[in-house]
């Protein structure tokens, strides 16, 4: 599964998820109210099974008065990495 396919799947399973540009890894944006369900799906769907949270951090954007939470997920089953700033 290449990164394009991966992003397509994520976009399909979670409404509101959009591809994140300018990232060196496959990354999607998820609105904050969809975070929990998106995470659950990412973990539980067999063909995704992102079971490891590699790290999570935050990017502060004081000019826009918001901050992004970044979750880096990894699937030990399939071996793909997904970066999910939301």
């Amino acid at each position, binding site marked *: 599964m290449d990164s394009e396919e991966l992003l397509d799947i994520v976009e399909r399973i979670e409404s509101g998820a959009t591809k994140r540009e300018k990232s*060196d890894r496959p990354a999607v944006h998820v609105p904050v109210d969809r975070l929990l369900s998106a995470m659950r799906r990412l973990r539980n769907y067999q063909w995704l099974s992102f*079971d490891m949270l590699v790290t999570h951090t935050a990017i502060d954007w004081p000019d826009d008065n918001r901050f992004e939470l970044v979750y880096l997920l990894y699937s030990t089953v399939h071996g793909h*990495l997904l970066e999910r700033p939301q």
Partner: protein
Amino acid sequence: MTVTIRTLNELLQPSHLPAHPLATQEYFVNMGPQHPISHGSLRLVLRLDGETVKEVIPVPGFVHRGVEKMCESLTPRQIVPYTDRLDYLSAFMNNWAITRVVETAAGIESNERIETIRTLMSELQRIQSHALWWGVTGMDLGAFTAFLYGFREREVISEIFEETVGARLTMNYIQPGGVMYDIHPNFVKRVKDVMAYMKPIIDEYDTLLSGNVILQERCRNIGILSPEKAIALGCTGPVLRASGVPYDLRKMENYGVYNKVDFNVVVGAVGDCWDRYYVRMQEMRESIRIVEQLIDSIPEGPTMTLRYNLPIEMPEGTYYSQVETARGVFGAFLVAEGKSEKPYPLHFRSPNYNNLWSVTALAPGWRVADIIAILSSLDLVIPDIDR
């Protein structure tokens, strides 16, 4: 979704008061921040019932230096020497992680020679780190002699580093675009000598400590970490591999020249302290294999592809790169604004932080002495936890 946040004060309330004057009461002890086991400044609050551990509450942060914040005002080349002060036993690998993320971001090419040298140095350091860990584990379990044997081998490898890098502990060597200096003329010969010396030494380690019945008793079936739990906690490195998950970035990320060498990913079967012990012992052997395969064929070429005085321009975007250090996955998450060469935020994903929290899952139900075995099998480096 609700998240309950419990403060440390709330956690430190006894779970029950004795109903009967003869009933036992739980009590708390501080293991650390100044304690021989913490090998640095790590505070563990133990909730004990007699000698049985009910709960372990790690309280990190005593060596917090704000490295990530400092990095926001530094150029990539200036960040490199900060990374080797995080996990000082994996200095090369940490250098490599930040170098990789900067190289990806700025599109800097590297060459075969540079990658080979980086791989060689990292593997040498993995051996060194594991040798030191072996000694420290021996000391933690009461066999003080092992400690000095471990240091003896560390010294030999340190001398190789000293010759090429100039430093023995915090090596600032792997730079964006290459390596700081070319290898010393003696390097190849010295490494060969040391590898020939190390092979029987690791067997000696086995005879000295691994086969000891007391060590086996102290480690076998103690602190079993199931693969599911290990993954859920984000454990990496030997801790995860000991639980039977063959997750090694050297195979998966395809960086350096690891795809050209033949080596095995060592996995454990049970996930107890003994597996974590033995995975590291075998990893030393595998690392020696990697070094031996590479040392004879270091390609020719420049060791720096970038001019020093030019700023490194990173286009806007988020970048993440990771390497396998001696303790697990060390990652650097960098957001570039595209305006200056300084990172906007920079986040380090340190293996020890995640590995530390596995102690909360491992420890309950065991004795105080088992906490020692568990902690030393996790091989924590405290400055890396606190950053």
